[in-house]
């Protein structure tokens, strides 16, 4: 039986998909691209930035991932 929490998740994912015109495949495709183009790239940059103590680059990495993950997450609780 679906709990209210489950329903909340469904609702949020639906809203996420709605952002891509209701195209579920595109939503997940964007998620895969997020992994390859944003997450992996920034993990690599983060490692190098930390070793160089480049705090600006660390900030940029975190900011990029936060912004990109927010694109497919609807964070408002229902």
């Amino acid at each position, binding site marked *: 039986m679906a709990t209210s929490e489950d329903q909340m998740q469904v609702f949020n994912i639906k809203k996420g998909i709605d952002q891509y015109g209701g195209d579920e495949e595109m939503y997940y495709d964007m998620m895969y691209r997020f992994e390859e183009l944003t997450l992996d790239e920034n993990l690599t940059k983060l490692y190098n930035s*930390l070793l160089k103590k480049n705090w600006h680059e660390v900030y940029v990495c975190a900011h990029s991932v936060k912004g990109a*993950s927010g694109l497919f*997450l609807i964070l408002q609780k229902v």
Partner: protein
Amino acid sequence: MIVIHKIGYLDAEILYHRAGILEGRSKAREEIKDESQYDPNDLLRMEKEIVEDSLRFIDASIDVKRWIAERKGKDFDPTALEENSNDSRLIAMLNYIFFAEREISKVFGVKIPPSRGRDGGYKVDTSNNKSAPCAACKCNIF
């Protein structure tokens, strides 16, 4: 049909949240231009916190990658990565992350979060219980 990836969704939300914390801390450190105005111990403490937040961020990233790998139908068992994974790119990236994590931990003298790290064993959370307050930063976003 909407497929519910409940755990994955929450993993992504944790990633978003931890990225925000790291963003804030690194921004604060970046804005310190004249370091002579600060106690070196305070600066060191700030930097250590950034590294700890980075490791938590990496931790959340791995969970999101696991979720996406499962969604793609890829085998992803970090406890036996080489034997069971069928995605060479994923293996390469994870090995790189594990290596980077160990290096960061070593250089800054910061411990890898206890749930993670290949040397200590990758503990896969199968309890499906992500509703508790964030263990790393003690925030209570859920």
